[in-house]
């Protein structure tokens, strides 16, 4: 068979995986596995191979296999990356060293505890806040926003909450209080959204003692972001906005209005009726 021919030439690669058993506690240790390599194999594929052939107790978190869900963030060969979007050959190494994302507690093996990420994310109130709650809950029309205004925040809305930025951030390495690049970016995403009216609500955590001013532009968050969200830029823009505001150079913008009815809107009455059915179903 062709597969056995290929396996004769097949290269193998050593996986060193950090293991931690929450039942026993103690210090995590690295365990080696030899994994046969095939073309296009991702780090996640390698972990699946280990689980199927070597050790079914190996634990990690993953779901979509295509860089959308943000579940399989791991510390792979010295950088936080998604296991699913990184092919083993692209790591240019015969060893793949996989550890759980740093700056999060380890639940088991490669599974980090994301409570910290989600708690901080909640703290910036990452949702559209409007003064008119009735209109927001039972909308009559959409809020007006131009294509140019969309550009101000669309990049930051691409965040998949994979948590890589927080594990790369030097401030987060020592500070549990730091709001962190992910949440700060999401806070700015809403401040930059013209439809939002919750400037005070988002600003509270954003401009707190442990907010944007604890970022010193080490740039690691933007370097590791798998979606091009660029948290470092969002944080600097948030600082810029606060600075300009303090100089009186910019005012709090009013929330975007509800789109007015479009003139010459084709009413339901003017829409031509569908022709009568040509086939009549017998009951």
């Amino acid at each position, binding site marked *: 068979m062709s597969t056995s021919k290929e396996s004769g030439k097949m290269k193998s690669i050593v996986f060193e995986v950090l293991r931690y058993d929450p039942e026993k506690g103690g210090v*995590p240790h690295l365990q080696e596995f030899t994994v046969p390599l095939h073309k296009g194999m991702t780090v996640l594929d390698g972990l699946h191979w280990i689980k199927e052939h070597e050790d079914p107790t190996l634990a990690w978190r993953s779901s979509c296999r295509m860089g959308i869900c943000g579940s399989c963030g791991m510390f792979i060969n010295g950088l936080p990356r998604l296991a699913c979007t990184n092919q083993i050959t692209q790591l240019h190494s015969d060893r793949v060293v996989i550890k759980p994302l740093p700056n999060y507690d380890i639940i088991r093996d490669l599974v980090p505890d994301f409570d910290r990420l989600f708690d901080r994310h909640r703290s910036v109130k990452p949702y559209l806040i409007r003064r008119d709650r009735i209109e927001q809950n039972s909308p009559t029309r959409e809020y007006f926003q131009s294509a140019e205004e969309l550009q101000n925040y669309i990049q930051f809305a691409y965040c998949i909450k994979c948590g890589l930025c927080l594990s790369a951030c030097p401030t987060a390495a020592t500070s549990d209080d730091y709001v962190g690049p992910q949440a700060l970016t999401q806070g700015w995403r809403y401040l930059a959204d013209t439809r939002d009216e919750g400037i005070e609500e988002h600003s509270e955590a954003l401009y707190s003692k442990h907010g944007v001013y604890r970022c010193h532009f080490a740039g690691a968050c933007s370097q590791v*972001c798998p979606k091009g969200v660029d948290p470092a830029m969002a944080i600097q823009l948030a600082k810029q906005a606060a600075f300009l505001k303090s100089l009186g150079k910019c005012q709090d913008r009013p929330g975007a209005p509800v789109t007015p009815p479009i003139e010459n809107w084709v009413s339901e009455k003017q829409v031509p009726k569908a022709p009568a059915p040509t086939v009549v179903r017998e009951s």
Partner: protein
Amino acid sequence: MQHRYRNNLGLWGWLGGGRYGFDRYAYALHRLTGLGILAYFLMHIFVTGTRLNGPEAWESAMNFFDNPLFRVGEFLVYLAFLYHAVNGIRLVLVELGLLVGKPGLPSYPYSNSVIRHRPVLVGAMVITAVLVLFAGADFFFLTK
């Protein structure tokens, strides 16, 4: 009983740039030079305070510091100042939202503010290097 393992990098997260970009090392050095300058500055306030007791007190203080150990220490503070100042100008500009570009729809391969402003970082380091070379020449060879 389930145990969580605390996996914060701690101070190594500040100092260890690892495989991250050059910016991360610039960050660590900025922090270290800042602390160094602050320590020197606090001492400097008291040392220059000896002027209160007249020229003799000042001269005896200067004689105390006139040895190779303090001379090298002074030079290190000078270098720390040069780095902190040049890198600081860059940081002020960046932290005021300049030099980071504008947000837009991300398209693959992704670029980011750190990559876009990399030439500024390199430029700042080149300026620092030139100043350091001149400072070394001035400090050890030109000044008698």
